[in-house]
């Protein structure tokens, strides 16, 4: 059974801090790892990672994948109150009829105080 574990489960920081969110996984037939941000509604897509060691970057957010050690990190620099959200990590299975099936971690609740 595919499994995704995120840490920490919650994090409280002040504006301007840098945070690192962790995601470790076990999946039978790995296709990709995805990060989502959720603010009291549907998850919104941040990054998709398929190759080890290649950093994906979008503004203050960046992410990298290590397929040997089976984990990914999401970094947020110079945090703002608008970064407060639940961050979800998911792995995509590539096998047969399970194709596209996403297994999610528990999520990390990030709270950024002014």
């Amino acid at each position, binding site marked *: 059974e595919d499994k995704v574990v995120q840490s920490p489960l919650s994090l409280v920081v002040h504006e301007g801090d840098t945070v690192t969110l962790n995601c470790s996984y076990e999946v039978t037939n790995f296709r990709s790892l995805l990060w989502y941000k959720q603010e009291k509604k*549907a998850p919104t897509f941040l990054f998709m990672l398929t190759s080890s060691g290649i950093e994906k970057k979008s503004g203050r957010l960046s992410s990298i994948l290590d397929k040997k050690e089976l984990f990914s990190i999401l970094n947020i620099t110079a945090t703002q109150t608008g970064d407060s959200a639940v961050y979800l990590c998911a792995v995509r299975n590539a096998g047969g009829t*399970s194709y596209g099936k*996403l*297994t999610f971690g528990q999520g990390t609740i990030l709270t950024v105080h002014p």
Partner: protein
Amino acid sequence: DAGITQSPRHKVTETGTPVTLRCHQTENHRYMYWYRQDPGHGLRLIHYSYGVKDTDKGEVSDGYSVSRSKTEDFLLTLESATSSQTSVYFCAITPRQGSNTEAFFGQGTRLTVV
């Protein structure tokens, strides 16, 4: 929003009554998924479909059934609702097999079983 509509958006129902949630898509995507989201659990897969009349169970399928009689609609039925099924339900789609893109989510249905 990738052309995904969930209905209803909110529902309160009594224990023991049947409930059907609908997910409608306009993009002719093959793969559709039903997830539930509860505090501390991230998103958990209930059922998924890989084509018309082709469905399979996810990790938390007990108490739920699904049907997909046409490409655009994926229905989730709670045969006899219980309080443990109080949750937020998300429908998601992924494009055709072989296309490694992000999953797109509907806006969610908040279901309360009293």
